[in-house]
């Protein structure tokens, strides 16, 4: 099934123009906004209303899973083959420390990496972008240009275009 997109996208040379556009679009009730930037900028986050990521929950979950896994394998394997070492208890709490720590770190990193990929995919599916060749071939977003993409109804295109032009967008493109 071919993805559909109806909306406007514009490119900007300056960060303040981009941020002002985003603020006015949000004030006008257009909230399906996607931005492009060559590097992360807090100014854009503030203009978008400081959205929060859920990645830390996955990281915490990974740490718990790693810790639990470490305790489990140490118990299981130590009791499976009793290996007395110079009078030390067979199950010793201090010796679990290093391995529990390392596996907590390892799993939390894996969960974090997985969460980044999953959450980006989820947001990308929720906010589909323009499908035109011109948009896909535009290659300055990762170089030196900012971009604003707004999904909207067909009858709202002109209102959005006028806001974008007001803040001196370099180019404005509509897609239906």
């Amino acid at each position, binding site marked *: 099934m071919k993805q559909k997109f109806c909306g406007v996208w514009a490119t900007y*040379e*300056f*960060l*303040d*123009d981009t941020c002002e556009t985003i603020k006015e679009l949000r004030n006008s009730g257009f909230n399906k*906004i*996607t*931005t*492009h*930037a*060559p*590097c*992360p*900028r807090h*100014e*854009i*986050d503030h203009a978008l209303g400081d*959205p929060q*990521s859920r*990645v*830390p929950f996955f*990281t915490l979950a990974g740490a718990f899973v790693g810790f639990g896994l470490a305790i489990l*394998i*140490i118990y299981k*394997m*130590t009791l*499976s*083959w009793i290996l007395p*070492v110079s009078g030390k208890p067979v199950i*010793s709490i201090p*010796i*679990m420390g*290093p*391995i529990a*720590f*390392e*596996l907590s*770190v*390892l799993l*939390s*990193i*894996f969960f*974090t*990496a997985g*969460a*980044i*990929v999953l*959450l*980006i995919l989820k*947001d*990308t599916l929720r*906010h589909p*972008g323009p499908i035109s060749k011109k948009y896909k071939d535009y*290659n*300055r*977003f*990762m*170089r*030196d240009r900012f971009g604003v993409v707004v999904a909207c109804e067909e009858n709202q295109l002109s209102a959005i275009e006028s806001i974008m032009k007001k803040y*001196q967008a370099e180019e404005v493109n509509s897609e239906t």
Partner: protein
Amino acid sequence: MSQISYGTINDRVVQSMEPPGRPWLVSMVLVLSALSMGVFAWSYQLRQGLEYSGISHPIAWGVYITNFVFWIGIGHAGTLISAVLYLVRAPFRNSIYRASEAMTVFAVMTAGLFPVIHLGRAWFAYWLLPYPNQRELWVNFKSPLLWDVFAISTYMSVSIAFFILGLIPDLAAIRDESKGPKRFFYKMASLGFRGTNHQWLHYMRGYLLFAAIATPLVFSVHSIVSWDFAMASVPGWHSTIFAPYFVAGAIFSGCAMVLTIMIPLRKAFPGFSEIIQVKHLESMGKMIVFTSLIVTYSYAVEFFIAYYSGARYERALFWFRPFGEMRVFFWLMIFCNCLVPLPLFIKKFRTSIPALFIISILVNVGMWLERFNIVGTSLAHEYDPFAWGSYQFEWVEIWITIGSFGWFFMWFFIFVKIMPSIAVAEMKETLPPPFRNKR
């Protein structure tokens, strides 16, 4: 720096990734020659046995374990620079962290070879891992050597993940500057990253968490490596100072290796000199002199503990190190690690590229010697005079050591040609953003 724009950074990095010239090819031939000799020496050892290395009674841990600790130490600076300095927002980090992270990954890959080489029968290396088997015979979780297996594997996995995560936006930037098959390669590698707010949001939060998690890992890994020694009741090893002493030494040697690599890199790609500025190298110089002082203090504390504890075996060992038959290694170590970095207190030396380069190389030599002193002299002079001995270096282990440098630099040379060796997005973050209405 004021002339640099977002676009200039892309251009500089793309220039560095152009097809290699003669200096790169000549360097690669040298590096591959060293690696080939190392591989030949190892294959000889595999055929003939460990007796052809210098490992013998009483020094059963020789050059290979020295190399292992040395390379793990080198591997520390990359994660330190990318994670710890990221958390404290150190501005000099951005221009050097990508190459340092690559250095970490390649150094840990090199370090990981040495326990396997040291085993002798390398084909049994998998015995180190807890894997299900018919006899239900599991590994000994009480052994610090097993903790080390977990620590090094975790460190390598986290370093690689951190390295790849940092590369994604930069590969996207390179993709947009490339054409043909190159563009296809970078398109695949950048996983569709286009710098949208959704991507940056989760990416940056994840990156911050990576840094926060990697920071304690940096300290834990070399602490666990130090416990390989400190948990054993061998004079010179059984000391509570070992973990912080090893961590400081690792940061010291790692920072020196960063300079050893960054200075030629800056020279090889002239466009980098306005990105990797002298003040960034100067900051590394400050870190070297600071960690040198910690290392010097640790040496002094070791001697004081040996004297003040009254433990006769400990005292005997700490007399043997500076005045015994292996004293050359000790005094060279003191020269390289305690005296050579001292000129870095003077700004003139800290801002002199040749001085920084020479000091960084001597510090690397000194830190290898420190590890050899710890491994070699302690085992050479344990409790029983009947079991005392010395160490004879053999050509096999010398060539394997040289080969390890070939292995490390081979990966680094490939890296600078196919990956962005400067962090593009993070360098852009440090620049004033383009504003129409100047603030």
